[in-house]
């Protein structure tokens, strides 16, 4: 991970930055401006998602893809900025790497299992 304030560290300790950087008032003021910006982005993203519903895109697949894409971008901002993940220690990244692997496997199994259902169920001899 690269940090814009890593100048005080040696090259080998990128994730072991000193505590003082994060506690300086300048740094906190800078992050506060970032928090407000991200808040604005989250509001805008929500409006965009709802607007998309009212515009009504004919393709169901496209609607789902766009809605989930906006949600993922919003989630990335929350995790990256509010939860400080854009600038964390190695230990947390390794925990989250495991979680991401497990989550992707879970969703992969879900997609795989989706094909196990009978399609075109008949009601009174006619497809729904």
């Amino acid at each position, binding site marked *: 991970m690269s940090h814009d304030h890593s100048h005080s560290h040696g090259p080998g300790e990128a*994730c*072991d930055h000193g*505590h003082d950087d994060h*506690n300086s*008032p300048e740094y*906190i*003021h800078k*992050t*506060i401006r970032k*928090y*407000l910006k*991200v*808040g604005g982005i*989250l*509001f805008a993203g*929500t409006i965009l*998602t*709802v607007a*998309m*519903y009212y515009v009504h895109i004919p393709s169901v697949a496209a*609607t*789902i893809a766009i*809605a*989930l894409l*906006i*949600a993922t971008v*919003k*989630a990335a901002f*929350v*995790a990256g900025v*509010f*939860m400080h993940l854009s600038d964390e*220690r*190695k*230990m*947390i990244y390794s*925990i*989250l790497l*495991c*979680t991401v692997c*497990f*989550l992707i496997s*879970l*969703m992969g*199994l*879900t997609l795989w*299992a*989706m094909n196990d*259902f009978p399609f075109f*169920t008949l*009601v*009174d001899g*006619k497809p*729904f």
Partner: protein
Amino acid sequence: MEIPYTVKPRPDTGLYNAKLGIWLFLASEVMLFGGLFSAYILLRVSSDLWPHGMVSIPVGTFNTFVLIASSVTVVMSWASLKLGKLSAFKGYMAATIVCALGFLGVKSFEYYAKFTHYDVWFKDEATAKKYFTAAYGEKGEEATRKLFVERFHLHNTKATYDANQIQLTGHLEGNPMFATLKKLTSAKKDTILFEADPPFGTHDHPKAIEVKLSDVQRLSAYVPAHSTYFAIYFTITALHGLHVLGGAIVLAYFLFTADHWWKKSPEQMANRVEVGGLFWHFVDLVWIFLFPIIYLL
């Protein structure tokens, strides 16, 4: 005994212990909600009929804004502590708790509306048609079918649906919660007054009709037992709601013990608030996915 590494990072992890703890916990939470999302996807793609428009989008959007606002205020409360501003911390934390209570209040209102809303299925087609006409007049069957077709987004509107597959939707006299056919009959009732929902696209409530309980095959409020849709809806949103409640209690504890902790150890206090905030952001993050999935798609 002193709890170690509440302020200073532990040399081998590079983190104060609570932070490592909360991230391990959040990792398990990702899998908890991930499992429920997976269940939701499988239930939905395997069902023949999946209802739409059962929850109010403006209400859901409002609650999304409330949660986002609370995420901003909670992180601002932490930043205020870092800047040494205790009173600003208190203001932001109080705002966060107000948002949390607002979210839960709106959610309770939504739940109440569901618990008092009923679907009624009739024992056979002829009986069903009789009640459709009673509720909506001469074109009653058409009006009821239209509501059915719109609820399930059925494109093949000419397909035949047994009239007794199609439910009459509305409210019971006195607006009771959780009434069932069994409860009503054991209360020695023969008939109920039923206020059917307005026809599609209008807000004009038709006149209440009398429904004989002996004509009813099934009667259910919008509770988990109503359908797969409501089962998964209530499971996920109630679990999320419990997280909001739990988070609000912890944050309220931070607010009410602020003076004590500020004197004792401001650094440890800031770390506690950061950890509580991490949980709070996670709850917001889950809602960011829940909102489009449940309200919009």
